[in-house]
């Protein structure tokens, strides 16, 4: 279908973070391509659309809560601008809980 441009990205969840998102580990998203998508915007979109369980276990204020790592294309988001990173087509964004057990 022609028409509205889409920004396709892949969201992944691991090590327990998926439990907050309907227990789905991998999702392909087609976001509205007319707007600019930063990670900050993506988090708001996730909160509104796919965060099914206790949001305080995923978000704290405008960012992800301590203990969840964000990896963009397998690189720590801290190296890429964190909340301000602008999503590119086919980006892979992974949210992973930190494990403490043994």
């Amino acid at each position, binding site marked *: 279908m022609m028409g509205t441009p889409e920004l396709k990205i892949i969201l992944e969840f691991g090590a327990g973070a998926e439990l907050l998102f309907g227990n789905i580990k991998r999702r392909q998203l087609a976001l509205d391509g007319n707007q600019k998508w930063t990670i900050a915007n993506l988090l708001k979109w996730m909160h509104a659309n796919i965060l099914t369980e206790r949001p305080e276990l995923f978000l704290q204020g405008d960012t992800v809560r301590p203990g*969840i790592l964000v*990896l963009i294309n397998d*690189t720590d988001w801290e190296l890429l601008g964190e909340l301000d990173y602008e999503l590119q087509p086919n980006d892979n964004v992974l949210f992973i809980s930190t*494990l403490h057990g*043994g």
Partner: protein
Amino acid sequence: GESAHTKLNKDDVARYSRQLILPSFGVQGQLKLKNSSVLIVGLGGLGCPAAQYLAAAGCGNLGLIDYDDVERSNFHRQILHSEARCGMSKAESARIALLELNPNCEIRCHSRLLYSQNAMHILRGYDVVLDCSDNLPTRYLLSDACVMLRKPLVSGSALKMDGQLTVYSYGNGPCYRCIYPVPPPPEAVTNCGDGGVLGAVTGTIGAMQALEAIKVIVGLGDVLAGRLLIFDGSSGTFRNVRIRSKRPNCHVCSAQPIITELIDYEIFCGMHATDKNNPMQML
């Protein structure tokens, strides 16, 4: 206190022959292992295989620290303990199993809780520390202490069918606080008692902790510092991800550290340092 070994004996050569012949290992690598001392914190699902492969490989001195006693619910993953040693301290039980495997290994047991008052004293005697613990306060404690003592910390963790592995406080790599400056809310932390864990998953991560420790000691390959290995046992896949370097404003490992002595990590994390005592928590 003892003088370093400068030669392998006949038994060493027979025992380690299949490892000695590895490229960039050789007699010098084996001597480095023989002269090394490694502290294993936690003799549970991760510590058992890690200790097993370090002892087998010829690590000369192992320290084992665990406050806990062997119980039945350990056996499915803590493969150094046995029915006959139920109730014994885990460190002592592991020591018996390890000496059967390699009687040449010098093993020292610390059967008590590691905490701020004893950590520096205990850790000082070792070259490399393995975090095989099961709780968050101990993870921060070990990281801070290893930064202060400049010792590499091989950190493994596991829960359910997931595992994670990295090496902190090594080269330009980050410390635990660089990655996690703020602890998670206690209600977001699940321990293995509550969440369960598969022994083959702790076994995989624990064996790789031994591998990274051997690489650090011998100077082999690329140590997993500044990188995090993420294992999803359910799909049988791994991801190798690039994590940040030292955080310039890290409270502990930066050039101007704010924290220069160990703190109270149970208060910092808002939770106990014993797996058992934590209230039931989800995720």
